[in-house]
Structure formats: C-alpha cells, structure tokens
C-alpha cells in the first residue's frame, strides 16, 4: 500500500536525521505512482501533487517523528477536498413529478441504476415511474420492464418511438396517476456521437428535467475526463452515479470527473441487486483510491 511504500522511503531517511525537500520529492514520486495506478487523470495528478507538495515541505512534516503519517494525512485531505462533500441531495420539484434523467456511455449501468434509484426513492415515500427511453439496444425496454416488475414499480413505454415523445408522455402519465418521480432511462451513447448527443439534448428539452445524472463506470481510466467534460458541456449534468464499486478497481476516475466538472458524485453502485445503491462518502473513496 502507499503507506507501506512511504514508510519504506522515510525509514531509510530517518536514520540520517533531518528530513529534506529531496526526501519529500521521493515520497511525492511514490504518491504520483499510486494515483496513476489508481486511474486518476494524468493532469489532475499533476495538480494534486503540486498542492500536496506545498504542504508537505512545511515544518509539520520536516520535523515530524512519523513523516509518512503526515504525508499520508495531507494526501488524504487534499483528495477528500477534491472529492467534495458527500451530498446525495436530489433536486425535488416544487410541483411534481420530479424528473430524473440518466445518461452515460454504453454499459455503464444506467438501466440497473434506474431500478435502484426507483427503489431508493420509494423507500423514502415517493411514488416512482420508470420510463424506457432506450429505443436502440436490443431488448432494452424488456430489460427495464423486468427490472420494474421485480420491484413492483411501473414502467412507462411507447415501444420504439422518439425518446423525446416518450419522455413527454411519461411525465403526463405520471401527472395523471399522481406518481411523483419519473426516472428516464436513456440509451448508452458516445460523447463523440453527434446524433446521439443531439438525441439526449432533445430529450432534455422536451420535459423539465430536475436532475440529470451521468452514470460512470468506476473502472474507467484516463478517458473519464474527456467524456465527463463533453457530457457536462452538452447537458446540464447535476452530478454522477459511480457504478460497479463492488469490484477491486481503485476508482481514480471519481477524482478526475469531480475535479474537471465541479459536479458532485451523488450515489455509488455496489452490486447488481436493486438494493446495491449507496450515498457517496468522499473520505471512504479517498481511502480506496490510495489503496
């Protein structure tokens, strides 16, 4: 682990007496390696190391009896600062229904997270409606219907129609059935696919969306920054759901997407079952990324 590596460095040094700036630079090299291995974006790592270095060459480290503890503490604090506060606040509409739109790359976990969100909101006393806006992927509508049936939560579909149409119809269906949250499950799309990004914009323009969540796979590598930036420029992304955190991926993409867009991670997916949705904890995430 990083702590072990830093201990190794500082152990060799402490025998020589006073800690110097070059010693701290050695330590920072190890921190940089750990962050890159954890998939934190190359440029974000540069900024993070600069911020850590500023503090690490201060007296608190140079005069410490356990410098590795201090460096770890600084690294942890700087990372947690970047990850933001754990705030799962979803925008609730003044006049129902609240409309939540899920977007993201192919296979990131949108359809599964749609079900999980619906269950989460129902447990909070809401009456959710799932809406099937993926008219592209084979059996996508069926998949959402099976998810909804398993939860006994209604699924709205018009089959393979224009998704903007389906969104409008789903919202008016919710209004006439006093359902107070509509969760729009959309097709996976590439941020560089102009047609599909135009479709997403059309959906977002067709109804009032109160919460746009970008669903991101926690094992995403350096590309996380490109796609998060592109999605956030095209759509009013309010935050992220980071999925598949039940894997052993370090999840550095979490820092990258937050650092580059300023939007918060609101939820994390930790399994395939419908109850596998948790509120985001920045300090736990920092621990995980540090490894």
């Amino acid at each position, binding site marked *: 682990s990083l702590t072990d590596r830093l201990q190794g460095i500082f152990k060799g040094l402490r025998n020589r007496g006073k800690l110097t700036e070059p010693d701290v630079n050695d330590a920072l090299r190890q921190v940089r390696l750990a962050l890159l*291995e954890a998939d934190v974006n190359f440029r974000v790592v540069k900024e993070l190391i600069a911020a850590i270095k500023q503090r690490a060459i201060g007296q608190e480290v140079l005069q410490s009896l356990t410098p590795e503890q201090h460096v770890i503490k600084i690294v942890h604090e700087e990372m947690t600062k970047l990850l933001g506060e754990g705030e799962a606040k979803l925008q609730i509409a003044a006049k129902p229904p609240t409309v939540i739109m899920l977007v993201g790359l192919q*296979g990131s*976990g949108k359809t599964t997270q749609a079900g999980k969100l619906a269950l989460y909101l129902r447990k909070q006393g809401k009456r959710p409606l799932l809406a099937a806006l993926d008219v592209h992927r*084979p059996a996508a509508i069926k*998949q959402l219907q099976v998810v909804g049936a398993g939860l006994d939560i209604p699924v709205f579909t018009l089959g393979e129609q224009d998704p903007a149409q389906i969104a409008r119809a789903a919202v008016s269906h919710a209004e006439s059935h006093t359902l107070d949250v509509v969760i729009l499950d959309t097709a996976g799309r590439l941020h*560089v696919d102009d047609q599909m990004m135009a479709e997403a914009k059309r959906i977002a323009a067709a109804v009032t969306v109160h919460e746009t969540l970008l669903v991101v796979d926690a094992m995403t*590598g350096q590309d996380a920054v*490109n*796609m998060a930036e592109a999605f956030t420029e095209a759509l009013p992304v309010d935050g992220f759901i980071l999925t598949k955190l*039940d894997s052993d991926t370090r999840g550095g993409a979490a820092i990258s997407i937050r650092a580059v867009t300023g939007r918060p991670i609101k939820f994390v997916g930790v399994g395939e079952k419908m109850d596998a949705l948790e509120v985001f904890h920045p300090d736990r995430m920092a621990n995980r990324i540090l490894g």
Partner: protein
Amino acid sequence: LMSRRGIDDELFEELEELLVRADVSIHTTTRLVEELREAARREKLRDAEGVRAYLRQELVNLLMEGHRPLTQPPTPPAVYLFVGVNGVGKTTSIAKLAHLLKRRRQKVLLAAADTFRAAAIDQLEVWGQRVGVDVIRQKEGSDPAAVVFDALQAARARRADVVLVDTAGRLHTKTNLMEELRKVHRVIERELGRPPDETLLVLDATTGQNAVSQARTFKDAVNVTGLVLAKLDGTAKGGNILTIQNELKIPILLVGTGEQLDAIEEFNPKQFVDALFA
C-alpha cells in the same frame, strides 16, 4: 518544423504523458521510455521524429507477438467462450462475430448461457434473429452449464461449424461467480474432449488499470486465450492491452468499433498504434 525538433527531456515527458493518457500503465510506460532513451543514444537517433518513429515501431513489434487468427479446430464445431466483467460488450461482440462468420459461410450457433441478468436471453435472441442464426436457450435462472451442454449437443446434431457461448457479466473478484464460470469451462472441455477453442475475454476500451487485474484473474480461472477490445470507437485508446500482451502473453484478436453488426475487425497492431499517436 516538428521533425527538426531536438531530443530533450521535454520530449520524453510528452511521450510519457501520451502513453499514460492512453491507459498504458505507468509501470510499462516508465520501462518503455527508459528503453527509448537508451535506444536514442545507442541508435544515435537525430531528432524528435526519429524517437517517435522508433517508439511506434517498438509498440507494433510488441503487439505483433502472438498476433494470430481465431483458432480453428481439426473437427467442428469450433467453440468460442466469451467472458468478462459487467457491461463490457460480450453479447454484442458475439452477435458481430456471428455475422462475420456467417458471411464466411460458416454455420453458427449461439448459446444463451447468461441465465441471470434481466432480459439477457431476449437480447441475444433479438441479435440471433437479426443475424439469422439459431440461439440455444433455456429458462431464465437455469444452470448456465446445462445451456452449454444443450448447445454442444445441438451443434453436433445440426453439424454447426461454430458455437459462440455468451456468459453473464461477472466481477473477477466474486469467487462464486468465477467458480460458476469454471464449471461452464469444464462442461465444454468434457463434452468436446478438449478445452474451448478460444476463451475470449472481452474488455471495454474505456477501462483503466483494472483491465490488467481482470485479465490476470480470468486467465487463472479459465485460461483466457485471447482478448476482444470493445468500444474502440470512443475516445479511449485501450493502452492497457500493452501490459496484458507483454506480461500475461494474451494476444488481442478482435476489436469492436461500434454498435452495429459490421462493427468488428480483426486486430491490426499498426492501426492500433497509429490511433494511440493520433
């Protein structure tokens, strides 16, 4: 102007950034850049362009190792088992490969051995219809090994040339799911009298360093013979396959470049390296 640029630290830093941002591991990148500095001295490379060209050739050479077509067994059917973590593109890659092989006049059969995920069997059946190949399936929730057994019997009876086996996405860290996969692999081996002709690990090109961990664990569990790198039509470069090829000796055989049936190609090392440097 660019090609007359000299060789300096800044050049090697730029190349390091290019590789890391392509998801080549920092460990592999550091090694490659060190060797490159060595080569620049030894070969007396004269400018930045020379260094770049040398690196590109090194990467192509690395990826050419183990470059080969899909394995064809002496007696049909060829059985290709598709494995990988959740959402990477297994089912879609199977549909595309089925389409490609059918166009080469092969008789293809699909085995719907993802009996777990919502509408997984439906998804493969829709693809089967579109491609024009049969899908062997059972009820949702049935034993995947039983579906595979059925599919191999059907393949013999119908004289199929190829069987493509779809399995459920599973995290390599879930030991019970990896054990289920081992069982599927064993059933194939027992019925065929040899292991599957390919055990293809499908990787998502957007995945970072976890891809190496996935490859390692799946290889230990079911002896992965090749990689399928899907979603290369995005902006991610898939550089982690360099480490997988180099350290685990697993060659990349196919790449997925979109969601349509024709969006699959045999892996081309030169094209891949060109895209890394684009």
